[in-house]
């Protein structure tokens, strides 16, 4: 691992320009070399090929500049959201509301807007704090822990399954595994093999939620989101089961895999750059400053490498000719490091304002759960940094990243200093 305050988030690579060009031609979210060199790749794309072509997965275009990504994200009539990944998951009907275009999109989105609004999320804070406290209780006293497995995944997973969907605890673990088959395909397998595994996992999850629907209809509804959706009406009509299951299939991965990515990378960052922990500890008791810092963290390490669109008509966009059916991929992390929009974009500035980043996307599909994610990150920082001793990567071990629809750290083995020592006092670092 690195020792000189340089983490994966800014790691300069020894790849030369030709190697970077080659990676651009072969860009794929499932490629480890692309991931390792991502910041160099985006820089080269923004400077010399803001709309580049990748030959992978049947061929598609990448969009790298902030301005072009903003424009594309705000033209759903030209850039359809179905399917939303490259290669596609293979679902025959669009996932709701992620892959639905206007005008239908608005109706679906309105159904879930209230539950994820700032007010609704704020009301969850006490339960969220209790949940985070329990997760840290489980860590307490352990000298060595895999923080990805013990914290980064369970925290947001419980957030969506427990606080929103009412899924019983005994089902959390296997549901997570099934969703990971879908979201983090094996980079060494073929597209076909991965698609098959993802389809099977998707089917298992669909069947699980179908049973839950049956159960709710038979035994009565609760105050969970699925109960809300079953009873909701769009233009006088109830949602059919395909639509309901489509919602469930989106809400779970959107709710945990994304925040897990940011949490895991944040905990790695803290291990490698203790001064970031110092800076965060100074503002733990200042909600306004902490909000600003959380947004900067999401700008700096956005969970999604990007999101896909399908061109609906022959057109010219960003000085490039597109044909109907062309696939494009909007690189959110590249937008977030565009020097035209952010000063010193490769620096983490926890007081950065303004911060018009695209870590939560932009346009009609912007992250529905952004306020939940912000709360999770905020409460995590407050509770974890107050209680957990300093830690570093376990000697002889490395942080292991995963590729896929989100990019994060799937294994983060660390050793803690003494749990009995003083953690934070008076909101100041030690």
């Amino acid at each position, binding site marked *: 691992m690195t020792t000189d305050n340089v983490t994966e988030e800014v790691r300069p690579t020894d790849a030369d320009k030709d190697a970077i060009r080659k990676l651009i031609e072969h860009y794929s979210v499932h490629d480890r070399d692309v991931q390792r060199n991502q910041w160099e790749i985006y820089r080269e794309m923004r400077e010399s090929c803001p709309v580049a072509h990748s030959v992978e997965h049947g061929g598609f275009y990448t969009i790298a500049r902030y301005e072009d990504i*903003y424009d594309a994200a705000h033209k759903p009539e030209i850039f359809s959201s179905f399917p939303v990944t490259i290669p596609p998951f293979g679902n025959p009907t669009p996932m709701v509301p992620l892959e639905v275009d206007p005008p239908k999109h608005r109706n679906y989105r*309105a159904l879930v807007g209230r539950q*994820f609004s700032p007010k609704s999320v704020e009301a969850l804070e006490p339960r969220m704090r209790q949940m985070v406290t329990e997760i840290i209780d489980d860590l307490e006293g352990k000298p060595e822990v895999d923080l990805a497995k013990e914290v980064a995944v369970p925290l947001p997973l419980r957030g969506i399954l427990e606080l929103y969907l009412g899924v019983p605890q005994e089902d959390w673990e296997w549901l997570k595994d099934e969703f990971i088959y879908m979201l983090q395909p094996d980079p060494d397998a073929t597209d076909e093999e991965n698609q098959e595994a993802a389809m099977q996992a998707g089917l298992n999850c669909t069947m699980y939620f179908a049973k839950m629907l049956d159960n709710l209809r038979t035994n009565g509804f609760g105050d969970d989101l699925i109960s809300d959706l079953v009873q909701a009406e769009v233009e006088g009509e109830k949602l059919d089961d395909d639509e309901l299951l489509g919602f469930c299939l989106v809400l779970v991965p959107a709710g945990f895999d994304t925040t897990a990515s940011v949490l895991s990378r944040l905990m790695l960052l803290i291990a490698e750059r203790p001064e970031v922990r110092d800076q965060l500890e100074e503002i733990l008791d200042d909600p306004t400053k902490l909000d600003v810092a959380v947004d900067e963290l999401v700008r700096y390490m956005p969970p999604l490498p990007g999101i896909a669109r399908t061109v609906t008509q022959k057109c010219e966009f960003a000085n490039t000719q597109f044909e109907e059916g062309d696939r494009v991929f909007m690189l959110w992390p590249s937008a977030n490091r565009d020097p035209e929009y952010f000063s010193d974009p490769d620096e983490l500035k926890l007081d950065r304002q*303004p*911060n*018009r980043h695209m870590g939560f996307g*932009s*346009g009609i599909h*912007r992250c529905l759960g*952004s306020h939940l994610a912000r709360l999770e990150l905020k409460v995590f920082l407050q509770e974890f940094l107050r209680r957990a001793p300093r830690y570093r990567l376990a000697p002889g071990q490395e942080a292991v990243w995963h590729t896929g629809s989100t990019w994060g750290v799937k294994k983060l083995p660390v050793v803690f200093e003494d749990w009995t020592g003083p953690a934070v006092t008076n909101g100041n670092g030690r």
Partner: protein
Amino acid sequence: MRLAIDSSRCEGHGRCASVAPGLFEVDDYGMSYLVVGDVPGDQEGAAAYAVDACPEQAIAVRE
């Protein structure tokens, strides 16, 4: 100084209400609206932050 918010562009990021809570609030669906006509002099800085913070570019200074 007066602000204008284009509600057709607002997607509920809530950044304006976060950086300028005296000027913006959010409704039950998370959509933002203005709570003042004239921006008080001591909040012009916050107003500028809110304009620049909106990921949808939905807020503008009118005069």
